[in-house]
Protein backbone atom coordinates (compact mmCIF):
# COMPACT_ATOMS: atom_id res chain seq x y z
CA UNK A 1 0.00 0.00 0.00
CA UNK A 2 1.17 3.49 -0.88
CA UNK A 3 0.56 5.97 1.92
CA UNK A 4 0.93 9.75 1.97
CA UNK A 5 0.93 11.19 5.48
CA UNK A 6 0.29 14.90 6.00
CA UNK A 7 2.19 15.86 2.85
CA UNK A 8 3.00 19.53 2.36
CA UNK A 9 5.38 21.45 0.14
CA UNK A 10 6.59 25.02 0.26
CA UNK A 11 9.16 26.03 -2.33
CA UNK A 12 12.16 28.18 -1.38
CA UNK A 13 10.53 31.10 -3.25
CA UNK A 14 7.65 30.97 -0.76
CA UNK A 15 5.09 29.31 -3.00
CA UNK A 16 2.90 27.10 -0.82
CA UNK A 17 2.11 24.30 -3.26
CA UNK A 18 0.63 21.56 -1.07
CA UNK A 19 -0.83 21.29 2.39
CA UNK A 20 -1.99 18.39 4.54
CA UNK A 21 -2.43 15.73 1.83
CA UNK A 22 -3.54 12.33 3.17
CA UNK A 23 -3.92 9.46 0.74
CA UNK A 24 -3.95 5.65 0.88
CA UNK A 25 -3.75 3.69 -2.34
CA UNK A 26 -3.98 -0.11 -2.45
CA UNK A 27 -1.91 -2.30 -4.76
CA UNK A 28 -3.59 -2.57 -8.15
CA UNK A 29 -5.87 0.38 -7.57
CA UNK A 30 -6.22 3.16 -10.15
CA UNK A 31 -6.47 6.64 -8.69
CA UNK A 32 -6.95 9.79 -10.74
CA UNK A 33 -5.80 13.09 -9.26
CA UNK A 34 -7.96 15.75 -10.85
CA UNK A 35 -7.73 19.50 -10.64
CA UNK A 36 -7.13 22.71 -12.53
CA UNK A 37 -3.68 24.10 -13.22
CA UNK A 38 -1.82 25.34 -10.16
CA UNK A 39 -3.52 23.01 -7.68
CA UNK A 40 -0.26 21.18 -6.98
CA UNK A 41 -1.20 17.87 -8.57
CA UNK A 42 2.03 17.57 -10.55
CA UNK A 43 4.01 18.59 -7.47
CA UNK A 44 2.28 15.80 -5.57
CA UNK A 45 3.37 13.30 -8.22
CA UNK A 46 6.96 14.54 -8.11
CA UNK A 47 6.97 14.03 -4.33
CA UNK A 48 5.74 10.44 -4.69
CA UNK A 49 8.30 9.85 -7.46
CA UNK A 50 11.06 11.04 -5.14
CA UNK A 51 12.13 13.85 -7.50
CA UNK A 52 11.34 16.39 -4.77
CA UNK A 53 11.21 16.02 -0.99
CA UNK A 54 7.97 16.67 0.90
CA UNK A 55 8.12 19.25 3.65
CA UNK A 56 6.52 18.24 5.97
CA UNK A 57 5.14 14.74 5.70
CA UNK A 58 6.26 11.35 4.41
CA UNK A 59 5.59 8.90 1.61
CA UNK A 60 5.69 5.19 2.45
CA UNK A 61 5.30 2.15 0.23
CA UNK A 62 4.42 -1.07 2.08
CA UNK A 63 5.66 0.58 5.26
CA UNK A 64 9.03 1.61 3.84
CA UNK A 65 9.92 5.29 3.74
CA UNK A 66 10.51 6.60 0.23
CA UNK A 67 13.56 8.87 0.23
CA UNK A 68 14.18 9.62 -3.41
CA UNK A 69 13.45 7.62 -6.57
CA UNK A 70 12.75 3.94 -5.94
CA UNK A 71 12.75 0.90 -8.20
CA UNK A 72 9.21 0.02 -7.15
CA UNK A 73 7.89 3.35 -8.45
CA UNK A 74 7.84 4.06 -12.19
CA UNK A 75 7.03 7.36 -13.87
CA UNK A 76 5.47 8.31 -17.19
CA UNK A 77 5.89 12.03 -17.82
CA UNK A 78 3.70 14.38 -19.79
CA UNK A 79 6.26 14.26 -22.62
CA UNK A 80 7.70 10.87 -23.63
CA UNK A 81 11.23 11.95 -22.60
CA UNK A 82 12.85 9.27 -24.71
CA UNK A 83 16.61 9.52 -25.10
CA UNK A 84 17.08 10.52 -28.75
CA UNK A 85 20.45 8.76 -29.10
CA UNK A 86 19.07 5.35 -28.16
CA UNK A 87 16.91 3.11 -30.31
CA UNK A 88 13.36 2.37 -29.17
CA UNK A 89 14.48 -0.98 -27.73
CA UNK A 90 17.44 0.62 -25.95
CA UNK A 91 15.12 3.26 -24.51
CA UNK A 92 12.77 0.61 -23.16
CA UNK A 93 15.73 -1.20 -21.62
CA UNK A 94 17.22 1.96 -20.10
CA UNK A 95 16.22 1.16 -16.53
CA UNK A 96 16.98 -2.56 -16.65
CA UNK A 97 20.11 -3.34 -14.75
CA UNK A 98 21.89 -6.36 -13.43
CA UNK A 99 20.24 -8.64 -16.00
CA UNK A 100 21.87 -10.84 -18.61
CA UNK A 101 21.62 -9.67 -22.21
CA UNK A 102 19.25 -12.45 -23.28
CA UNK A 103 16.98 -11.72 -20.33
CA UNK A 104 16.99 -8.02 -21.09
CA UNK A 105 16.10 -8.69 -24.71
CA UNK A 106 13.21 -10.89 -23.68
CA UNK A 107 11.84 -8.30 -21.25
CA UNK A 108 12.18 -5.47 -23.77
CA UNK A 109 10.53 -7.53 -26.50
CA UNK A 110 7.72 -8.42 -24.12
CA UNK A 111 7.18 -4.81 -23.04
CA UNK A 112 7.16 -3.53 -26.61
CA UNK A 113 4.73 -6.21 -27.62
CA UNK A 114 2.39 -5.27 -24.80
CA UNK A 115 2.22 -1.68 -26.06
CA UNK A 116 1.88 -2.95 -29.63
CA UNK A 117 5.17 -1.63 -30.94
CA UNK A 118 7.25 -4.80 -31.40
CA UNK A 119 7.98 -3.76 -35.00
CA UNK A 120 9.47 -0.43 -33.90
CA UNK A 121 12.25 -1.90 -31.74
CA UNK A 122 15.07 -0.82 -34.02
CA UNK A 123 14.03 2.69 -35.05
CA UNK A 124 15.11 6.02 -33.62
CA UNK A 125 12.65 7.87 -31.35
CA UNK A 126 12.48 10.71 -33.89
CA UNK A 127 10.72 8.36 -36.30
CA UNK A 128 7.78 7.76 -33.93
CA UNK A 129 4.49 9.63 -33.79
CA UNK A 130 3.56 11.38 -30.53
CA UNK A 131 1.24 8.54 -29.50
CA UNK A 132 3.80 5.86 -30.32
CA UNK A 133 6.51 7.72 -28.37
CA UNK A 134 4.25 7.89 -25.32
CA UNK A 135 3.55 4.15 -25.61
CA UNK A 136 7.31 3.52 -25.67
CA UNK A 137 7.65 5.59 -22.52
CA UNK A 138 4.92 3.48 -20.89
CA UNK A 139 6.83 0.35 -21.95
CA UNK A 140 10.02 1.80 -20.47
CA UNK A 141 8.25 2.46 -17.17
CA UNK A 142 6.62 -0.98 -17.04
CA UNK A 143 9.61 -3.09 -18.05
CA UNK A 144 11.12 -2.83 -14.57
CA UNK A 145 7.84 -4.14 -13.09
CA UNK A 146 7.11 -1.29 -10.68
CA UNK A 147 4.45 -1.70 -8.01
CA UNK A 148 3.31 1.86 -8.55
CA UNK A 149 3.17 3.66 -11.87
CA UNK A 150 2.83 7.44 -11.75
CA UNK A 151 1.48 9.17 -14.84
CA UNK A 152 1.69 12.96 -15.07
CA UNK A 153 -0.94 14.15 -17.58
CA UNK A 154 0.37 11.42 -19.87
CA UNK A 155 -1.96 12.02 -22.80
CA UNK A 156 -2.63 15.76 -22.54
CA UNK A 157 -0.31 16.64 -25.43
CA UNK A 158 -2.05 14.23 -27.82
CA UNK A 159 -5.02 14.76 -30.10
CA UNK A 160 -8.47 13.63 -28.91
CA UNK A 161 -8.57 10.39 -30.94
CA UNK A 162 -5.08 9.28 -29.92
CA UNK A 163 -5.86 10.21 -26.31
CA UNK A 164 -8.96 7.99 -26.13
CA UNK A 165 -7.07 5.23 -27.89
CA UNK A 166 -4.19 5.40 -25.41
CA UNK A 167 -6.51 5.53 -22.38
CA UNK A 168 -8.05 2.23 -23.47
CA UNK A 169 -4.59 0.95 -24.27
CA UNK A 170 -3.26 1.83 -20.81
CA UNK A 171 -6.15 -0.02 -19.16
CA UNK A 172 -5.50 -3.03 -21.38
CA UNK A 173 -1.80 -3.10 -20.50
CA UNK A 174 -2.65 -2.67 -16.81
CA UNK A 175 -5.15 -5.56 -16.92
CA UNK A 176 -2.59 -7.80 -18.67
CA UNK A 177 0.13 -7.16 -16.09
CA UNK A 178 0.35 -9.56 -13.14
CA UNK A 179 0.28 -8.54 -10.43
CA UNK A 180 -1.55 -5.42 -11.51
CA UNK A 181 0.39 -2.26 -10.65
CA UNK A 182 -1.07 0.69 -8.81
CA UNK A 183 -1.70 3.56 -11.20
CA UNK A 184 -1.81 7.18 -10.09
CA UNK A 185 -2.83 9.39 -12.99
CA UNK A 186 -2.65 13.14 -12.70
CA UNK A 187 -5.01 14.80 -15.14
CA UNK A 188 -7.16 17.85 -15.80
CA UNK A 189 -9.45 15.88 -18.11
CA UNK A 190 -12.67 14.82 -16.34
CA UNK A 191 -13.49 12.09 -18.87
CA UNK A 192 -10.01 10.66 -18.59
CA UNK A 193 -10.35 10.46 -14.81
CA UNK A 194 -13.74 8.70 -15.04
CA UNK A 195 -12.60 6.26 -17.76
CA UNK A 196 -9.45 5.23 -15.95
CA UNK A 197 -9.95 5.47 -12.22
CA UNK A 198 -11.45 3.42 -9.41
CA UNK A 199 -11.32 6.58 -7.37
CA UNK A 200 -11.01 10.26 -8.25
CA UNK A 201 -9.19 12.62 -5.90
CA UNK A 202 -10.21 16.19 -6.64
CA UNK A 203 -7.81 18.92 -5.58
CA UNK A 204 -8.24 22.62 -5.05
CA UNK A 205 -5.50 25.25 -5.19
CA UNK A 206 -3.81 27.85 -2.94
CA UNK A 207 -2.45 25.80 -1.33
CA UNK A 208 -3.11 22.44 -2.98
CA UNK A 209 -5.45 20.37 -0.81
CA UNK A 210 -7.78 17.45 -1.36
CA UNK A 211 -11.25 18.83 -1.98
CA UNK A 212 -13.12 15.53 -2.30
CA UNK A 213 -12.78 11.86 -3.20
CA UNK A 214 -15.29 10.26 -5.53
CA UNK A 215 -15.48 6.49 -6.04
CA UNK A 216 -16.14 5.35 -9.61
CA UNK A 217 -18.30 2.22 -9.49
CA UNK A 218 -18.77 1.69 -13.21
CA UNK A 219 -18.11 -1.62 -14.93
CA UNK A 220 -15.11 -1.87 -17.23
CA UNK A 221 -14.77 -1.25 -20.11
CA UNK A 222 -16.55 2.00 -19.54
CA UNK A 223 -18.87 3.52 -22.12
CA UNK A 224 -18.12 7.24 -22.39
CA UNK A 225 -21.66 7.83 -23.71
CA UNK A 226 -23.51 5.88 -21.01
CA UNK A 227 -26.00 7.60 -18.75
CA UNK A 228 -24.15 6.65 -15.56
CA UNK A 229 -20.94 8.09 -17.04
CA UNK A 230 -22.75 11.33 -17.79
CA UNK A 231 -24.16 11.41 -14.28
CA UNK A 232 -20.72 11.00 -12.74
CA UNK A 233 -19.29 13.70 -15.01
CA UNK A 234 -21.93 16.09 -13.69
CA UNK A 235 -21.09 15.14 -10.11
CA UNK A 236 -17.36 15.67 -10.63
CA UNK A 237 -18.03 18.98 -12.37
CA UNK A 238 -20.06 20.17 -9.40
CA UNK A 239 -17.21 19.40 -6.99
CA UNK A 240 -14.70 21.14 -9.28
CA UNK A 241 -16.97 24.21 -9.34
CA UNK A 242 -16.98 24.16 -5.55
CA UNK A 243 -13.18 24.15 -5.53
CA UNK A 244 -13.22 27.24 -7.73
CA UNK A 245 -15.69 29.02 -5.43
CA UNK A 246 -13.26 28.34 -2.58
CA UNK A 247 -10.59 30.08 -4.56
CA UNK A 248 -12.69 33.19 -5.20
CA UNK A 249 -13.58 33.57 -1.51
Amino acid at each position, binding site marked *: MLALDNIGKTYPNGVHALDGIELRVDLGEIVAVLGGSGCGKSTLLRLI*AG*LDRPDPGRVTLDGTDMN*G*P*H*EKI*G*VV*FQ*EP*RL*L*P*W*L*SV*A*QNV*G*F*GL*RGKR*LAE*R*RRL*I*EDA*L*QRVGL*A*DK*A*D*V*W*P*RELSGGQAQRVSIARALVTRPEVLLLDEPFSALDAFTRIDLQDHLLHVWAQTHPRPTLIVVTHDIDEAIVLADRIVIMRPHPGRVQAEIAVDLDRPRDRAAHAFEELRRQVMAVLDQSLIHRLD
Partner: protein
Amino acid sequence: MTDTSLAAPRTAARRFPGPGLALGLLLPLGLALIWEAAVAAGLNNGRLFPPPSVIAGTLWALWQTGALADHALATLGRVGAGFGLGVAAGTVAGALTGYSLLASRLLDPSLQALRAIPSIAWVPLFILWFGIFEASKIALIAVGVFFPVYLGLMAAIRSVDRKIVEVGRIYRLSGPEMVWRILLPAVLPAYVTSLRSGLGLGWMFVVAAEFMGASEGLGYLLVDGQQLGKPAQIVAAIIAFAILGKITDSLLAWASTPFLRWEDGFANHR
Protein backbone atom coordinates in the same frame (compact mmCIF):
# COMPACT_ATOMS: atom_id res chain seq x y z
CA MET B 1 7.94 -11.00 -34.76
CA THR B 2 11.24 -9.24 -35.21
CA ASP B 3 14.28 -10.17 -33.21
CA THR B 4 14.71 -7.33 -30.77
CA SER B 5 18.30 -6.27 -30.90
CA LEU B 6 20.04 -3.79 -28.70
CA ALA B 7 22.07 -2.48 -31.61
CA ALA B 8 21.68 1.01 -32.97
CA PRO B 9 19.09 1.44 -35.69
CA ARG B 10 20.22 1.16 -39.26
CA THR B 11 20.53 4.41 -41.09
CA ALA B 12 21.09 4.97 -44.79
CA ALA B 13 24.74 4.66 -45.85
CA ARG B 14 26.79 7.84 -45.92
CA ARG B 15 26.12 9.76 -49.08
CA PHE B 16 28.86 10.67 -51.49
CA PRO B 17 28.84 13.96 -53.31
CA GLY B 18 27.15 13.61 -56.67
CA PRO B 19 26.10 16.25 -59.17
CA GLY B 20 26.24 18.85 -56.41
CA LEU B 21 30.04 18.67 -56.51
CA ALA B 22 30.22 19.46 -60.22
CA LEU B 23 27.97 22.48 -59.72
CA GLY B 24 30.10 23.72 -56.86
CA LEU B 25 33.28 23.44 -58.96
CA LEU B 26 31.82 25.52 -61.79
CA LEU B 27 32.65 28.95 -60.33
CA PRO B 28 36.28 28.43 -59.18
CA LEU B 29 37.27 26.39 -62.25
CA GLY B 30 35.58 28.89 -64.57
CA LEU B 31 37.40 31.85 -63.00
CA ALA B 32 40.72 29.97 -63.15
CA LEU B 33 40.22 29.24 -66.85
CA ILE B 34 39.29 32.85 -67.61
CA TRP B 35 42.40 34.10 -65.81
CA GLU B 36 44.61 31.58 -67.57
CA ALA B 37 43.19 32.69 -70.93
CA ALA B 38 43.58 36.36 -70.05
CA VAL B 39 47.28 35.93 -69.21
CA ALA B 40 47.88 33.74 -72.26
CA ALA B 41 46.28 36.43 -74.45
CA GLY B 42 48.61 39.03 -72.97
CA LEU B 43 45.88 41.06 -71.28
CA ASN B 44 47.91 40.86 -68.02
CA ASN B 45 51.49 39.79 -67.41
CA GLY B 46 50.42 37.68 -64.42
CA ARG B 47 53.49 38.61 -62.42
CA LEU B 48 51.70 39.61 -59.22
CA PHE B 49 48.84 37.17 -59.66
CA PRO B 50 50.24 34.19 -61.49
CA PRO B 51 47.93 32.12 -63.69
CA PRO B 52 46.89 28.60 -62.58
CA SER B 53 49.45 26.90 -64.80
CA VAL B 54 52.34 28.71 -63.08
CA ILE B 55 50.92 27.94 -59.63
CA ALA B 56 50.49 24.30 -60.58
CA GLY B 57 54.07 24.26 -61.85
CA THR B 58 55.32 25.71 -58.56
CA LEU B 59 53.32 23.20 -56.56
CA TRP B 60 54.68 20.38 -58.70
CA ALA B 61 58.27 21.57 -58.31
CA LEU B 62 57.85 21.87 -54.53
CA TRP B 63 56.34 18.39 -54.45
CA GLN B 64 59.09 16.83 -56.53
CA THR B 65 61.87 18.12 -54.35
CA GLY B 66 60.00 16.84 -51.31
CA ALA B 67 59.96 20.35 -49.87
CA LEU B 68 56.17 20.60 -49.94
CA ALA B 69 55.74 17.40 -47.94
CA ASP B 70 58.40 18.49 -45.42
CA HIS B 71 56.77 21.90 -44.91
CA ALA B 72 53.27 20.46 -44.75
CA LEU B 73 54.32 17.83 -42.21
CA ALA B 74 56.02 20.43 -40.03
CA THR B 75 52.86 22.53 -40.02
CA LEU B 76 50.61 19.52 -39.51
CA GLY B 77 52.73 18.42 -36.55
CA ARG B 78 52.38 21.83 -34.90
CA VAL B 79 48.63 21.96 -35.47
CA GLY B 80 48.30 18.40 -34.19
CA ALA B 81 50.26 19.06 -31.00
CA GLY B 82 48.57 22.41 -30.32
CA PHE B 83 45.13 21.03 -31.09
CA GLY B 84 45.69 18.03 -28.82
CA LEU B 85 46.81 20.18 -25.90
CA GLY B 86 44.08 22.78 -26.45
CA VAL B 87 41.35 20.15 -26.71
CA ALA B 88 42.57 18.32 -23.61
CA ALA B 89 42.66 21.49 -21.50
CA GLY B 90 39.42 22.87 -22.97
CA THR B 91 37.61 19.60 -22.36
CA VAL B 92 38.71 19.31 -18.74
CA ALA B 93 37.93 22.97 -17.97
CA GLY B 94 34.63 22.92 -19.89
CA ALA B 95 33.49 19.71 -18.23
CA LEU B 96 34.34 21.04 -14.76
CA THR B 97 32.67 24.41 -15.17
CA GLY B 98 29.67 22.94 -16.95
CA TYR B 99 29.08 20.25 -14.35
CA SER B 100 29.92 22.04 -11.12
CA LEU B 101 28.59 25.44 -10.11
CA LEU B 102 31.51 25.85 -7.72
CA ALA B 103 34.08 25.23 -10.45
CA SER B 104 32.21 27.62 -12.70
CA ARG B 105 32.25 30.40 -10.11
CA LEU B 106 35.90 29.71 -9.39
CA LEU B 107 37.30 29.36 -12.92
CA ASP B 108 34.97 30.96 -15.42
CA PRO B 109 35.59 34.65 -14.57
CA SER B 110 39.35 34.22 -14.95
CA LEU B 111 39.02 32.25 -18.16
CA GLN B 112 36.60 34.79 -19.61
CA ALA B 113 39.07 37.56 -18.75
CA LEU B 114 41.86 35.64 -20.51
CA ARG B 115 39.57 35.08 -23.48
CA ALA B 116 39.17 38.82 -23.89
CA ILE B 117 42.89 39.05 -24.74
CA PRO B 118 43.52 38.67 -28.49
CA SER B 119 45.55 35.46 -28.58
CA ILE B 120 48.24 36.93 -30.82
CA ALA B 121 49.06 39.36 -28.01
CA TRP B 122 50.59 36.43 -26.12
CA VAL B 123 53.26 35.92 -28.77
CA PRO B 124 56.01 38.12 -27.29
CA LEU B 125 55.48 36.62 -23.85
CA PHE B 126 55.41 33.05 -25.17
CA ILE B 127 58.67 33.68 -27.01
CA LEU B 128 60.26 34.93 -23.80
CA TRP B 129 58.92 31.97 -21.84
CA PHE B 130 59.22 29.12 -24.30
CA GLY B 131 61.87 30.33 -26.73
CA ILE B 132 61.67 30.94 -30.45
CA PHE B 133 61.33 27.28 -31.47
CA GLU B 134 58.49 24.76 -31.30
CA ALA B 135 57.19 25.22 -27.76
CA SER B 136 56.05 28.83 -28.17
CA LYS B 137 54.31 28.00 -31.47
CA ILE B 138 52.45 25.03 -30.03
CA ALA B 139 51.45 27.07 -26.97
CA LEU B 140 49.93 29.77 -29.19
CA ILE B 141 47.94 27.22 -31.21
CA ALA B 142 46.78 25.49 -28.03
CA VAL B 143 45.49 28.80 -26.63
CA GLY B 144 43.56 29.39 -29.83
CA VAL B 145 42.01 25.92 -29.74
CA PHE B 146 41.25 26.03 -26.03
CA PHE B 147 38.55 28.71 -25.95
CA PRO B 148 36.02 27.42 -28.47
CA VAL B 149 36.30 23.94 -26.97
CA TYR B 150 35.97 25.24 -23.42
CA LEU B 151 33.02 27.51 -24.18
CA GLY B 152 31.27 24.98 -26.41
CA LEU B 153 31.46 22.14 -23.92
CA MET B 154 30.52 24.26 -20.90
CA ALA B 155 27.47 25.69 -22.66
CA ALA B 156 26.46 22.27 -23.96
CA ILE B 157 26.59 20.66 -20.51
CA ARG B 158 24.66 23.51 -18.95
CA SER B 159 21.91 23.30 -21.54
CA VAL B 160 21.31 19.54 -21.24
CA ASP B 161 17.55 19.17 -20.87
CA ARG B 162 16.54 18.91 -17.20
CA LYS B 163 13.70 16.63 -18.25
CA ILE B 164 16.10 14.06 -19.61
CA VAL B 165 18.33 14.31 -16.54
CA GLU B 166 15.20 13.52 -14.49
CA VAL B 167 14.77 10.30 -16.42
CA GLY B 168 18.25 9.38 -15.21
CA ARG B 169 17.27 10.30 -11.64
CA ILE B 170 14.13 8.16 -11.82
CA TYR B 171 16.36 5.18 -12.70
CA ARG B 172 18.74 6.12 -9.87
CA LEU B 173 21.84 6.57 -12.02
CA SER B 174 25.02 7.26 -10.06
CA GLY B 175 27.11 10.35 -10.86
CA PRO B 176 29.44 8.57 -13.33
CA GLU B 177 26.49 6.70 -14.89
CA MET B 178 24.67 10.01 -15.36
CA VAL B 179 27.73 11.43 -17.13
CA TRP B 180 28.25 8.38 -19.32
CA ARG B 181 24.64 7.55 -20.19
CA ILE B 182 22.96 10.98 -20.27
CA LEU B 183 25.34 13.95 -20.29
CA LEU B 184 27.98 12.63 -22.69
CA PRO B 185 25.63 11.59 -25.49
CA ALA B 186 23.57 14.73 -24.99
CA VAL B 187 26.53 17.11 -25.37
CA LEU B 188 28.30 15.20 -28.15
CA PRO B 189 26.85 17.13 -31.14
CA ALA B 190 27.74 20.51 -29.66
CA TYR B 191 31.14 19.16 -28.57
CA VAL B 192 31.98 18.02 -32.09
CA THR B 193 31.01 21.44 -33.41
CA SER B 194 33.28 23.11 -30.86
CA LEU B 195 36.14 20.76 -31.82
CA ARG B 196 35.70 21.75 -35.43
CA SER B 197 35.75 25.47 -34.71
CA GLY B 198 38.76 24.82 -32.46
CA LEU B 199 40.53 23.07 -35.32
CA GLY B 200 39.73 26.00 -37.62
CA LEU B 201 41.32 28.39 -35.14
CA GLY B 202 44.27 25.99 -34.81
CA TRP B 203 44.96 26.38 -38.53
CA MET B 204 44.59 30.14 -38.23
CA PHE B 205 47.06 30.36 -35.38
CA VAL B 206 49.65 28.08 -36.93
CA VAL B 207 50.08 30.71 -39.65
CA ALA B 208 50.60 33.41 -37.04
CA ALA B 209 53.01 31.12 -35.17
CA GLU B 210 55.02 30.37 -38.27
CA PHE B 211 55.18 34.06 -39.18
CA MET B 212 57.04 34.70 -35.95
CA GLY B 213 60.16 33.01 -37.18
CA ALA B 214 60.16 29.50 -38.53
CA SER B 215 62.61 27.74 -40.79
CA GLU B 216 60.07 25.30 -42.11
CA GLY B 217 56.32 24.95 -42.43
CA LEU B 218 53.73 26.26 -44.84
CA GLY B 219 53.72 29.61 -43.01
CA TYR B 220 57.46 29.84 -43.68
CA LEU B 221 56.72 29.32 -47.39
CA LEU B 222 54.34 32.29 -47.22
CA VAL B 223 56.90 34.60 -45.60
CA ASP B 224 59.68 33.34 -47.88
CA GLY B 225 57.49 33.91 -50.95
CA GLN B 226 56.78 37.46 -49.86
CA GLN B 227 60.40 38.32 -49.07
CA LEU B 228 61.75 36.87 -52.33
CA GLY B 229 58.85 38.16 -54.45
CA LYS B 230 57.47 34.75 -55.43
CA PRO B 231 53.65 35.13 -55.50
CA ALA B 232 53.22 31.67 -57.06
CA GLN B 233 54.85 30.13 -53.99
CA ILE B 234 52.52 32.12 -51.72
CA VAL B 235 49.43 30.95 -53.59
CA ALA B 236 50.80 27.38 -53.61
CA ALA B 237 51.18 27.50 -49.82
CA ILE B 238 47.69 28.97 -49.46
CA ILE B 239 46.26 26.12 -51.53
CA ALA B 240 48.14 23.60 -49.39
CA PHE B 241 46.66 25.24 -46.26
CA ALA B 242 43.17 25.06 -47.73
CA ILE B 243 43.50 21.41 -48.68
CA LEU B 244 44.98 20.35 -45.35
CA GLY B 245 42.39 22.36 -43.39
CA LYS B 246 39.54 20.84 -45.36
CA ILE B 247 40.92 17.29 -45.03
CA THR B 248 41.43 17.50 -41.26
CA ASP B 249 37.98 19.06 -40.75
CA SER B 250 36.35 16.38 -42.89
CA LEU B 251 38.20 13.67 -40.97
CA LEU B 252 36.86 15.07 -37.71
CA ALA B 253 33.31 15.28 -39.08
CA TRP B 254 33.58 11.81 -40.60
CA ALA B 255 34.88 10.28 -37.36
CA SER B 256 31.94 11.74 -35.43
CA THR B 257 29.07 10.75 -37.74
CA PRO B 258 28.62 7.20 -36.37
CA PHE B 259 27.87 8.75 -32.97
CA LEU B 260 25.50 11.41 -34.25
CA ARG B 261 23.21 9.52 -36.62
CA TRP B 262 20.34 9.88 -34.14
CA GLU B 263 20.22 13.64 -34.51
CA ASP B 264 16.82 14.93 -35.54
CA GLY B 265 18.13 17.92 -37.39
CA PHE B 266 17.79 19.46 -40.79
CA ALA B 267 20.86 17.61 -42.11
CA ASN B 268 19.43 14.16 -41.47
CA HIS B 269 16.25 14.87 -43.39
CA ARG B 270 17.57 16.06 -46.72
